[in-house]
């Protein structure tokens, strides 16, 4: 097992080199010169040339690539061209909030999606089944952006159940450790901040969860249906186990293997959905950070964020493979 993990980790290196090269090439292909983007509408030609020099944008392509690889290896991307602050420091501030939002959405998706799928499978072709699947269909068909605007209008603007936007109430101070707002509130024992940050988190997390929730529900349903027809379940029932135990212990655990794969894949979707959610709900986060960076051709930031997300994906895939072994003892890595 340890050897397997090590081998997988070594294989991450060529993957990342490929991603790095792709990012570099893509950035060169984006139309628009970062020097002009930085200089703004009012700069003269000499001023633009000066900026090009200051940021090494006039160096030959292979040299720029070498510098880029160096910054990736040392994980030091220097300073943002836009805010002139160290990229690492800024990224840390935004990453915590995005991860917290994505994890909260994932938890909601699982807590609602799996029971929905189980109910649909065990009550196959009943009103409950159809009802759950219609909910799932709705969830997957609603664009995050649209769902966000509608729910803000109804629940926040009209009914005042949630705040309209933001991440924390104006009057509340919070000392940051992880930059996850709920997490930091707990870590610093700041209860007013916990209340406020949870209130601000709930609606965006729900909106972001709708698509993975729907996918998880449908996947659980079809996987459960397959497992429920297996011989060993008939055996379980035959030996007199209560139906609830049959479903929960014998069927669900086996049915979850494909669901885990889907969750792994969905996490990527969550990160991209997080950007839209962050925009609608005016939450700070990596998504908005990188989009602003792309508009400003802020190369160091774009490169750092892409690398970070790539690493995250690779790690999630590894985690998914390892969870298989836990869920299904027949799977061995060696």
């Amino acid at each position, binding site marked *: 097992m340890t050897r397997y993990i090590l081998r997988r980790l070594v294989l991450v290196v060529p993957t990342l080199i490929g991603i790095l090269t792709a990012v570099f090439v893509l950035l060169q292909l984006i139309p628009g010169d970062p020097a002009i983007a930085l200089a703004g509408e009012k700069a003269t030609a000499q001023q633009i040339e000066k900026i090009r020099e200051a940021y090494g944008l006039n160096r030959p392509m292979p040299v720029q690539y070498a510098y880029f690889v160096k910054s990736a290896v040392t994980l030091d991307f220097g300073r943002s061209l836009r*805010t002139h602050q160290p990229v690492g420091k800024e990224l840390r501030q935004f990453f915590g909030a995005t991860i917290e939002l994505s994890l909260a959405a994932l938890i909601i998706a699982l807590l609602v999606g799996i029971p929905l799928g189980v109910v649909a499978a065990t009550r196959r072709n009943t009103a409950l089944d159809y009802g759950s699947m219609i909910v799932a269909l709705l969830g997957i068909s609603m664009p995050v952006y649209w769902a966000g605007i509608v729910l803000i209008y109804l629940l926040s603007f009209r009914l*005042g159940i949630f705040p309209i936007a933001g991440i924390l109430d104006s009057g509340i101070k919070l*000392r940051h450790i992880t930059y996850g707002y709920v997490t930091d509130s707990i870590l610093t024992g700041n209860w007013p901040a916990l209340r406020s940050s949870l209130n601000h988190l709930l609606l965006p997390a729900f909106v972001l969860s709708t698509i993975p929730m729907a996918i998880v529900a449908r996947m659980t349903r079809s996987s459960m249906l397959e497992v429920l027809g297996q011989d060993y379940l008939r055996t379980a029932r035959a030996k007199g186990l209560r139906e609830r135990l049959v479903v929960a212990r014998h069927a669900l655990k086996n049915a979850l293997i494909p669901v885990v794969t889907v969750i792994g894949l969905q996490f990527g979707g969550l990160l991209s959905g997080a950007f839209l959610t962050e925009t609608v709900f005016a939450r700070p986060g990596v998504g908005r950070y990188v989009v602003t960076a792309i508009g400003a051709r802020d190369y160091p930031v774009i490169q750092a964020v892409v690398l970070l997300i790539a690493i995250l994906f690779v790690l999630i895939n590894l985690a998914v493979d390892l969870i298989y072994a836990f869920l299904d003892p027949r799977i061995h890595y060696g």
Partner: protein
Amino acid sequence: MANQDRAQAQGFPTRLDRRALLKRSGVVAAAPALAAALPGAAMAAGGGAVSSRWVRAQEGTGLLVGISTDIDHLDPRQANTQEAYFANANVYDCLVLYELGSANLRPGLAESWDISEDGLTYTFHLRQGVTYHDGTPFNADAVITWYNSIKEGTPGSQFDATKMPYMAGFLTDLVSEVAKVDDATVTFTLPKPFSPLLANLAIPIFGVPSPKAIQQYALDLSVNPSGTGAFMLASPDDWTRDSQLTLTANPNYWGGAPSVGKVVFKVGPESSTRLQQVETGEIDIALFLTPDDVKKARDNADLQVVEDAGLNTNNVEFNVRKEPFTSKEVRQALNYAVNKEELSQGLYDGGMVAAGGVLPPSDWAYNPELKSYPFDSAKAKELLTTAGYSEANPLKFTFMVYTVARGYNPAGDRLGTAIQEYWKQVGVEAEIQTEEWTQYRADRRADKFQVSLSGWQGDNGDPDNFLYALLGKANWGGANTSWYDNPEVEALLLQAQEISDQAQRTELYHQAEQMIVDDAPWVFLGYQKHQVVVRTTVTDFQLQPTYIYYLAGVKKA
């Protein structure tokens, strides 16, 4: 005439006016049936939104300002967004400031100034007894330290190449030396007279930071701000990037302690979100709303739209060195073909003031007599015939259109389509092409365009910043991308740069603008109104033509 007077003459209140509010209070928005049917919905009388516990949770937290993007720097030298200019204008003071509600100038950190007879020496008498937020006293040395930090190549320079266009063009290229006379006096020496210099000094990027902070933090001053302004950053915890910035009132402000104890800038990228926030009271002031959202705000008795004709211009640019736009008849014909009033109503919900020329009404050299080209298809066709075009031989060209929404054109590429249609009415075949915005700007400078959508946001309220910046020969390939050059106009504009008397300058600008309108290097379209939505609980909020707002005097009930 002061900007405020001009704005009121046009029927725009520049300041919150109780009577105007009372007149409007009869207007009650009809709540959609859907929301009304929801159980437990406690509707407020005004806009239909609830005054929820979220709003009450924010009570006592100060003046809440909704902006659309992050404040990038709390260092005036590095600030690069409109939001940052606004925030910096309240944390730092410039030597010269704008009068409230206009682009006219008033004393700032300089209590008064003298300009030498030849226009080459500006002597600033500095305000005494002013202290920075970090306790450092303000004096001549502070001015010298600041100036050296932005003048490339001087000792102590922290010049950042990305700030070049602004710092150099607006100040350091115009000044040969800044010297201390005594603790309370500094002189700026110019190689040649340049009267817009004072207006330049009032741009918030020329706020003067604490010399101690400049030396201690260098470029990291942007997260460790220290100015002399009405508000200050009390603790680093008060600033969450891309989310909210809380500034605390400076009780020792030389202009008098601010009326509100705190100002909170809250970032909300969506215009619709900011509108809902200001309707419920989650924010008190909403900036940069779309024309459509401003229209909705007018129906809410809790809200007031504060507006004037903005300091900008929205235009189509002809490359006057390229065929067929070397022909004045062609350029004039394309002007006559466009119906500006219809564009204003149809495309911008009334948010655009039709252009009389280059300068907007919020500029002090605006000429109300100037009326560029009225909509007249017959005249357009006649001019095209004179120029040798007919149905058999129509005028054809490629029309470059950007696709992003700009401050001076929130409709983005729809403006291009509308103009194409007007031109089609007079038999002109314009083929639209688009490019990504950064590329668009680069290609326009590189002389690759024939006709293109263009526009400008004024920097300092000085007419030179429109007329010479956009149409002066020295700015060819910079901001002058119509490659316009009329020697007579050039002479007038250069002469106006050397005179400091405002009345004389106005006279010269009127002459020059008349000639420019006659030459028609642009289709003069209009000026996008400057609109801010403010809750009625907020009073004494004033628009500045340069899109910054001084908050020291703003009150909140």
